């Protein structure tokens, strides 16, 4: 220690040598006693921290690190459990429901007909009105569908095809509520309109709920009242193909009151003066088998366009609607606008399409007539609409057949070939167009899925067949061996459908 250190230390020691006053010492001792008590018995809120503090360092670090995610998981778990419990309750209530009432509307246009449904057991009654003016009624049971058109005073009776009752399908999805069908994780309730809601979504999409198409998509949100656990409205967005315009549809004002509805409401009740037409299939035990659709592919001379015709049935008194697409690509993904034939990637102009389509129609002479025709139409973005109907004279014996444009295949011989063969079907019974794409090389590597054959919609199956034949034509243009190889990669249903082609190619 140097002298300087020594002298400074002496100064410091002298300066800090004050004796501790007794009173101050006593008060400090009190603080020490308090500290001792606190250490011996930590307060409740500090117990966890004190317990953690006494753990070995590695254990304390592990516990402190794991705590936040564990707490978050617990919170999510509580939310999920609550929503899962609510959904289970909804399913239970739906199962116990025997009668209900709801309304449906197409949100695109408020002037569209509004529908009001009453259901009890397996029967449904529907009222269709436009601005409070009753325009039609329908009585639906598992065996038959009876529709009364008040304006024409006509009644159509046909067998009930569950898959074609658009609208009913949606409510069935609610009515047969299964929590596992809906996206519930993680699901929080929201407050809106002064009520607490659990909003669940139908995950994915890919198919229309009624199984019409594998290329259509749906987005559906169901609003469940968190207080009553009962669904209140179902919001739907539908589109016929990827990229197409979404079309909203709303089912709302659900009343799941189990209120006894008089059976008479579900009994067809139309004026005795109404003209009744019965579908000839009404008394058949079941629909035609799924593979009954057959198509004939006609390829245009330039090899770019194929047209398929199919034999189909028209109901006496029924309507056939044809929509002729001028722009094969623009209906999908672009806003409606006037058709521009110069942009038609199909290589055909309206004047060329129209005669082909109309020329291919073979309608029973003297028994059909066009009831409406329209030019290029803004809403349909370049579609021409023709409607034909059979005269409602009731004298039409049974069923008759006609041929119509079913679909067109866009063959890859076109300059903008992108590796896909596309087919479009005009389906008046559903929302719009369906499009199928069958990949060819360089994308094609696997077997084409065959679920489409189970679709009850002949048009859909036919359009798929068109695309299939288009792909086959593409391969055949290269060599018969390539076409045969393409066919051999396919599943049994596809091979059966194209059996004649396979035989022809083998013979080659």
């Amino acid at each position: 220690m140097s002298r300087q250190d020594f002298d400074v230390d002496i100064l410091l020691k002298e300066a800090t040598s004050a004796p501790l006053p007794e009173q101050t010492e006593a008060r400090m001792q009190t603080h020490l006693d308090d500290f001792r008590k606190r250490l011996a018995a930590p307060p409740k809120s500090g117990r966890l921290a004190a317990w953690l503090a006494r753990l070995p360092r590695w254990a304390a670090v592990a516990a402190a690190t794991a705590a936040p995610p564990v707490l978050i998981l617990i919170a999510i778990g509580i939310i999920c459990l609550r929503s899962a419990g609510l959904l289970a309750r909804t399913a239970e209530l739906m199962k116990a429901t025997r009668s209900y009432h709801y309304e449906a509307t197409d949100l695109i246009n408020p002037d569209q007909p509004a529908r009001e449904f009453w259901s009890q057991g397996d029967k449904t009654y529907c009222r269709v009105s436009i601005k409070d003016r009753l325009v039609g009624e329908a009585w639906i049971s598992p065996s038959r569908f009876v529709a009364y058109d008040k304006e024409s005073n006509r009644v159509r009776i046909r067998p009930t095809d569950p898959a074609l009752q658009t609208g009913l399908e949606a409510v069935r999805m609610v009515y047969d509520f299964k929590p596992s069908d809906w996206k519930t994780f993680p699901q929080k309730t929201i407050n809106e309109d002064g009520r607490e809601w659990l909003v669940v979504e139908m995950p994915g999409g890919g198919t229309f709920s009624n199984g019409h198409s594998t290329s259509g998509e749906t987005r559906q949100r169901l609003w469940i009242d968190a207080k009553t656990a009962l669904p209140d409205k179902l919001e739907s967005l539908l589109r016929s193909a990827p990229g197409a315009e979404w079309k909203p549809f709303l089912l709302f004002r659900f009343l799941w009151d189990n209120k006894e509805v008089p059976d008479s409401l579900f009994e067809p009740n139309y004026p005795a003066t109404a003209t009744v037409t019965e579908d000839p299939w009404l008394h058949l035990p079941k629909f035609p088998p799924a593979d009954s659709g057959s198509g004939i592919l006609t390829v245009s001379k330039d090899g770019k366009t194929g047209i398929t015709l199919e034999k189909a049935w028209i109901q006496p008194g029924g309507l056939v609607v044809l929509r002729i697409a001028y722009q094969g690509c623009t209906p999908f993904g672009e806003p409606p606008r006037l058709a521009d034939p110069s942009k038609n990637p199909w290589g055909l102009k309206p004047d060329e399409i129209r005669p082909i389509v109309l020329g291919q129609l073979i309608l029973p002479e003297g028994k059909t007539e066009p009831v409406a025709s329209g030019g290029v139409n803004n809403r349909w973005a370049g579609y021409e609409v023709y409607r034909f109907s059979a005269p409602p004279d009731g004298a039409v014996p049974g069923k008759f057949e006609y041929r119509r444009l079913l679909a067109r295949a866009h063959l890859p011989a076109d300059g903008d070939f992108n590796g896909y063969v596309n087919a479009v079907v005009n389906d008046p019974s559903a929302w719009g167009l369906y499009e199928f794409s069958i990949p060819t090389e360089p994308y094609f590597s696997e077997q084409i899925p065959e679920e489409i054959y189970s679709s009850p919609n002949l048009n859909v199956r036919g359009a798929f067949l068109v695309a299939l034949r288009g792909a086959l034509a593409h391969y055949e243009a290269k060599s018969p061996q390539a076409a045969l190889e393409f066919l051999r990669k396919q599943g049994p249903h596809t091979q059966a459908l194209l059996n004649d082609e396979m035989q022809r190619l083998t013979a080659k």
Partner: protein
Amino acid sequence: MRSGEAEYNILIGPLEGTLMTSVYRIVQDPHDAEDAFQEALAKVWLHLAKIRRHPNPHALILRIFANTARDALRKRIRRIRRENSRPASQSYGGSPEDPPRAVDRGRVLAAIAELPRRQAEVLLMRVVQEQSYEAIANAIGCSEATARAHALRAREKLAESLADMNPNLRAEVQS
């Protein structure tokens, strides 16, 4: 795992006297010393986990008390300067009942309060709490040589600022 009572006896018990006297000697005001003592205990409570894991918990506790007392001293000096606009050394004379002394304690303590924090804490732990350099180094988390260097610089600064109080010191500084 130790009980709270046993832990107190191990951590605080042996230091009770040192803690109380060192805080008072640094602050040199009964009320401020008591407040500083209570505040230091609260800091110990807050950092209990760290203290438990420390290789020399006693040194760390002493450091906490020394630092808290130094902070209280600095606050006191600032407060007096602000209120009286007088030199701190003239008004800072410790407790009224203390006997008169040859050394101007106010000046010495004010000079300590002006030291950089690390130098002040090393010096206070060394001189007032009479800790070894090894313990001081453990407490502040440095090497023993660094602790010695801090103490040396602190002494040099004090010798310079207090040179007029001691002829030996004055000669040392002038040489």
